[in-house]
Structures are given as structure tokens and as C-alpha cells.
């Protein structure tokens, strides 16, 4: 068993938590209908990532890790309300998605080192989607920030 197993577990857990995070935000801010719909789509994307990782987690062995849960519980004790609350919630999601993003990079490095071309293919696909998730969060937060920070009651 290698430490890759640990990283794969970490990422699978982090993606599952990110999916949960997207769903929570979508529901908590359902009146922002674009956030509601896009969060739902992205939650499904994260769940698909978990499925894609599963065979590799099995192949490279189980090694439990609690780290992503710590991040998740720290950030998502409860969702917030209003424009500012939305901004803070999305910022938390941004941190979680960043953790996934850099993990995909690490696993991609290992996949090349092995080499495991099947794993690399999964990494390439999912890493690009995670990068777009980050980009979407940033796009939406940039749009919302001035209104939320300057004029919202």
C-alpha cells in the first residue's frame, strides 16, 4: 500500500463533502435561482467524481482519513442568510473546491509517476471540471460582492 491510497481517500471524501456543500448552498439560497440550479448541477458533477474515483480507491487500498471532514464541519456548521451570507457560504465552498483541485493535481502527479493511464484520464477530466467549479464560484462571488458589501441592508 502506498500513500497514494491515502490521497485518493482524502479526495473521494472531499468531493463527497463538496457535493453536500453545493446542495446545502443551493437549498439555503434557493431564491437565487441561478445558484440553486447551478449548485445542483455541480453537486451531481462532484458525485460523479466520487464514482470515478471508487475503482482506484479499491485498487490502491483503503486508508482512512478524517481531514476533509474537519474542513467540512468547520465551514458548514450552518448556512447563512441574505446577500452577505451567500457570499460567505460561497467562499467556504471555494475553499473546499480548492482542496479538491490541488488534490487532483497531486494524484495526477502520482498517476504519471506510476504510470497509471486510466487514473490519469480520470484526473484530467475531473480536474478540468473542478477548475470550472472554482471559476464559477469566483464569477458569481465577484458579481455579488459589491452589492452585498456596500448596499445590502
Amino acid at each position, binding site marked *: 500500500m502506498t500513500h497514494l491510497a491515502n490521497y485518493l481517500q482524502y479526495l473521494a471524501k472531499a468531493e463527497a463533502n463538496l457535493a453536500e456543500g453545493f446542495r446545502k448552498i443551493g437549498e439555503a439560497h434557493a*431564491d*437565487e*435561482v*441561478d445558484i440553486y*440550479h*447551478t449548485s445542483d*448541477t*455541480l453537486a451531481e458533477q462532484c458525485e460523479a467524481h466520487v464514482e470515478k474515483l471508487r475503482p482506484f480507491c479499491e485498487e490502491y487500498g483503503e486508508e482512512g482519513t478524517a481531514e476533509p471532514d474537519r474542513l467540512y464541519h468547520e465551514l458548514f456548521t450552518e448556512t447563512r442568510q*441574505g*446577500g452577505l451570507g451567500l457570499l460567505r457560504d460561497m467562499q467556504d465552498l471555494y475553499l473546499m473546491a480548492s482542496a479538491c483541485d490541488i488534490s487532483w493535481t497531486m494524484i495526477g502527479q502520482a498517476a504519471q509517476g506510476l504510470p497509471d493511464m486510466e487514473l490519469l484520464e480520470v484526473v484530467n477530466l475531473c480536474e478540468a471540471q473542478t477548475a*470550472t*467549479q472554482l*471559476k*464559477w464560484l*469566483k*464569477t458569481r462571488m*465577484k*458579481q455579488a*460582492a*459589491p*452589492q452585498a458589501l*456596500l*448596499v*445590502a*441592508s
Partner: protein
Amino acid sequence: MADRIADPWGERTPFGREEEWPVRVDQFLEDGVSEDEVDDWIQTASILHSNGDALDIAVKNGRIVGVRGRAVDRVNRGRVDPKDLYGWQANNSEDRLTKPLVRKNGDLVEASWDEAFDLIVEKSKKLLEEKGPLAFGFYTTGQLFIEEYYTLGVIGKAGLGTPHMDGNTRLCTATAAAALKESFGTDGQPGSYADINHADAIMHFGHNIAETSVVTWMRVLDRLEGPEPPRLIVVDPRPTPAAKRADVHLAVKPGTNMALLNAFLHEIIENGQYDEEYIESHTLGFDELKEKVAGCTPEWAAGICDVEAEDIREAARILGTTERLVTTALEGVYQSHQATASACQINNIHLVRGLIGRPGCGILQMNGQPTAQNTRECGANGDLPAFRNWDNKEHIQQLADLWNVERVKIPHWAPPTHAMQIWRYAEQGSVNFLWIQCTNPAVSLPELHRIRSILQKENLFVIVQDIFLTETAQLADVVLPAATWGEKTGTYTNADRTVHLSESGVEAPGEAKHDLDIFLEYASRMDFRDKSGEPLIKWEHPEEAFEAWKECTRGRPCDYTGITYDKLRGGSGIQWPCNEEHPDGKERLYTDDVFNTQTENCETFGHDLLTGAMNDEKDHRAIAPNGRAFLKASEYLPAREVPGEEYPFRYTTGRTIYHFHTRTKTARAPQLNDAAPDAWVELHPSDAESLGVKEGDTVRVESPRGGMEAKARISGIREGVVFAPFHYGYFDQGEAGGDSPNGRAKPRAANELTITQWDPVSKQPVFKVAAARVVKVADNTDGTPAPAPTTTASAPVGEAGGRIPATAGGRKAEAKETLGEEA
């Protein structure tokens, strides 16, 4: 004489490929007025759709008494849409607004302009001091003129400094703009109507062209009836007049356009019908496109769209083999699911086959409203003037220099706020000032009970500038009476980049003011200054405003610098770009296969089509498109709201030929109103049977958001789909209707039940896809059929349908058509 209610498209003037479209001059004059009694003919163009038909207004004793088409114009060659033949009568309507109104103790009461402006300026100054520019929102239209939009844009962006400016063009044309930007780098219609003269194949995708671009459909009809007619493909869930003439009609399930388009691309690629050399030299993204459509066989798409695989294959064969293809698209794409992605895929068909920039190879991403193109160009909506990129500092600096303000004054930290978001900010109370011009959101936006409640919010100051007391104006705090078409001078641009001048021929009624003068007065009273302390707005008249606009466009793709009012007088409209290089305008864009995707030039750095996530300059530079077009591919995804047990129908909204927008004008033209006097609901015969509904029975259509009631028309719409026209509100129904507190009229607006949802890239609301149920409310006791026209997509079917009297205008609709040489 021609009854153009009974026969909206008039007499045929067939012509063959490469020939000039024959002239036919249409004319309608008020009863009792003959041609030689007309005092004056005033040059203008249509204001009731996006086709841009050139016409002259007949004036007698200071009143409008009719119209006739301009034979000299490239767009219509003399023809006139029935909406324009009869619609001008609204100008003379008794109930025009003639004095400002202000709300006092809950009621709108007449006031002087001074009182109205004092109130607006006092409110503005106080809010600016307390909360700053982000508390201001502007919701404009697709019906003002260039001069007005540009002035409004400068006031909002460099005077107040708010990013919250958009128009109802968000509802009609945002996707066209978004897809053109994503594929080609900037907005701008690639093709020209004249491409229809050269085409071997034409596809109308989600475009009920016969009813919405009526005169261009006459051009297509004349090709179809001439020698060597083009093959015709129509994609529409309703049996539109175009669908009835099609070689292939694909009546797809609403919400599945993307699946069909991906199957088209799959077939073209699978059969090796793409232009490898063109793709290699002039596009980016072919490999990804190929991969995305790899599994999208006609059989796969047939299962999703619920049409025959053989028909998909046949349509794809036409698309894959023709050497001259014109494709048009409109709301069936733009207001549907995966709107921008689908519109990009339409661009892709032309790109992979290299069918662009040559005669007969036209992409026409259509517009809805007459001046929607200018809302997009002039910076009065969610774009910056002259297709500038909000994320390009150099572009912002150009505007700052032009307006002589600091760059930081012009909001550019994020894209200009889209309409649905502005309404959301108003709902949440962070936007407290909303100035609505010449549009009627209380009927045209989705989920009307929500819109009405926002308009009535205590902490939202609503100004409505319009020519009638619309459903929206009834809920305003201040109503400003405006002049309209025929009463003011200005220019506007149609869906194929043709710029027309519209001259003033009659006085506006009462104290109604020109829209430009209203904006100028506001700017002056607000004392907006540039950084030298001079007034920010440096023009007083339309022609001066046009000259200022021209400077703003210099060197941009929509270059107007070669156009003057004088040049537009007398002759045909002129297509931009018009400058030193193209002194008479340019028929089609991208003739050199170089697109506007250079990082320094482009209007957007691009988006992810699934989420709307934005690329930044760095991303764009890394791709180095350098003039190559983007082939943006997307997978098909099911619509967000699909039918289920409780709401088993697919609900879709649309238009009829006889009305424009929310009938503000067309309801006041008797010929048009009588042709389609009230709302209706279209049902397929088998759906009607299972509901126990017969022609003319009253049904209620409901979604989780609301319901509307109207008589049922049993029509040829596809099974499982229910359609309602979006034109009908409540202004002619007594008290405000729907579920408003004082609602006495039955709810009949189609948008009572539409969904609040929008495309991730274009932010255009989804009006074409919602789930609904239908319940019968009342039997048709008096035997009157649904008030739906029989001449159009709403034609009745079946035995009972055959007994319904055909829609006709009779003597009062008699118009004159003069063919060819005689004209």
C-alpha cells in the same frame, strides 16, 4: 385590394436563385383618405418587430393617416408587415398619456413636468448620498432609438456610475448576442437577409418566422415559389406556417434542442461532410466538439426529442451537403433550455462546413424587438457601448477618454448586472430606484405575481416612461408620458445590421416629451459633470447624439462613422460597418474568415456554457485565438422542470402575427385586435380528448407558480405540449388582474405560470419550458370558438375546426399591394 388580416403575407412575387427580389409596395390608408390627399410622407422603419422594414408614414392635417412600404429599401423592397399596416393607429389613440402622473395618497394623479422631475431628482440625490450608485437600476427596452440608448448609457455609467442597467432585450435577444460573442468574439450578425436570395437550403430553428419576421418570410415564400427553390428545414413544436411548407419539419419536445443539434453535428462529422481545411485554419475546438457529439446518433436524439430518426437523418443530410445554407434562430432557441449552448451549436454547423461570409451562407441569430440590436450596441443593457469588453481595461479607458471621466467612474469590476438580477436586488431591497422605459414587465417577465409584488414594494421608487398607462405604469410612483415613433427623430438597426432613420412627422399629444429630452432633462437637473467640470452630456438634439455615438463606434466592429442622417434620407437603410473602408456598408461579416476573437478586440473572454463561469484575459491569451472562431460544444442535459404526475404537460409560450409584445400598441389597432382579441390555450386533439375539452371550452393552465384561464383551441401542436400566447395582460380588462389584491379580471397572462430561471451564459429567462397541468373550467355554452387566429400556427384542426370561421379583416382591413414596375 388585399385583406392583410386574412392573408398576412399578401401576393407572391416569385424569384429564382441569384435574382433580385421583386418590388411590391404595400399601403394602407385610413378610410376615406386617398393617396393624393396625403400632405406629407415621412420616412421611417417598423417599430413593431425586428425585421426593420422601411416605410413612410402618411400625414394629413398633422395626424398620421396611414403607411406605405419603401420600394427602395434592401430589407423589404416595399412590403409591410400587417402589424405595421394597421398598428400606427395606436399613435392616435384617445388614451395616450399626455401629462406626468405622480402617486399621492396611493393614487396616480396628474402633475406638471416640474413636479415629476423635482420628485425624481430629489429621490436620486438623496439615494446617491445615502447609498451610492448601486441603489439605482434601469430597465429599458428594445424600442427606443440609438440616440436615446446611448444617452441613457452615458448617464447610467458615467453620470450615476451604476452597473445595474439592462433592458427587456434580456428576454428577447440576449442569447443571440451571447452566442455570437462566444463563437465569433463579438456581437454582430454574420449574415444578411439577402443570403436568402442565394440559398440552396434554409433552416428555421425555433423561429416562427412567418409570424415574427413576416416580411422576411415573404422573401422565403417567393424563393419557394420561384425556380430552383431552396430545401426547407423547420424545427418547432407547433405547425407554424413555415413548418407546413418545410421539406423536413421536426416537432421536437420543448427543451430538447441541444440533443437534436448534437445529432446534426454527429451526422455531419460521421459522414465526413465537414471542411477540414476551414476548420484547421479558422476555428478552435473541433476535437472537443467531435468527442462531445460522438454518441449522438439520430436514433439517440429521436428518443429524446420524440421525432423520427429518419427525419433527423434527412435534415442532417441537407445540412451536410448543401453548399449554401441560411440558418435563422429565435425564441424557440433563446428562451428554451440550454439556450446559449444551442445557439453556439447552430453557429458550429456553419463553421464546420465553412458556410459563412459568402453569399447564401448566412447565420441569422434573430432579434425580437425593433431596436434590440441598439440596446445591445449602445450600452443601455448588459453590455458596454460599441461591443467593448467590460473586462478589458483598455476598452474602459477608451470610454473614459471619450466621456472625459476617470476610468474608475465606469463600473467594470464585474459584468453589467443582468435584468433578472436587478429585479432580485429590488426584491431584496438593495436597489431602491428603478426607472423602467417603454416596456411592460408586469406582463412580460416570468412569474408575474412576484413582479407585481416587487413593483409595489414600499422601499422601491418606480418610474415608468411610456406612451400608455400599462399594467406596469399602474404600479409606478411616477409616470412620464413619452412621445413615440413618428413623433420623434432617431435611428435604429434591425436584425441584419441595417440602420434606418426614423423622422418626426407629427406632434406628440399633450405634454408628452421625447424620450431623449427626458434623459437630457434628468442629466441636466442632476448636474452630471465630466472631469473638467463641463456637463457630461454634450448634445441637445438627436443628430448631435448620433454624431457622438458614431465617435464611440470608431474602429469597433459596429462602426457607424460613415453614416449620416443625410445619407440615410431618401434611399435604402445601410448595413454597418459603414466607414471609410466600407462607405456604403457591408453586406456580410467575416468575408475574410477572420473573426473578432483577438484578445485586444473581443467583447468577451468567453464562458463555460454549463455554468456561466467566466474566463479571464490570461485564459484567453493562453488559447491565443487570434481571429479564429470558437467551436463551443456542450452535452445535452434534460430541462430543469420536466412533466411529472402532478404537472403532466410541457408548457410553452409564444407569439401571434397580429400582436407585438404586450399589445400596448397592437390592441389599439382594431384590425389587429379583432384578429386575436383575447388569450387562448392550444391543445393537441388527443390531449383535449383525454381532458374532456372541446374547442372553445374554458381551461385553466396551472404550474406551481400560478395559473391562467382562456378558451381552448384544439390545434396541430405536438402531443403533451400546451401553448399560450404571452401578449395578453389586463389593461383592457378593467382592474389589474391576476392575483393582485384588487384583481377582478380572470388571470389570462401566460407569464402567471412561467418559471424564474435563466440561461447560465446569456441570462435569458426560460419561457419555453415549464411543467403544467390543464383543468377544464367551463363548457363552451355559446358555441364560440377560441379567439385564436385560424391563419397561423394556432389554426384549428379536425371536423369541429373546419367549421370555425376563418380569420379575416373585411373591408376595414383592405390594403393596396402594387407589384414591380408600377410601384
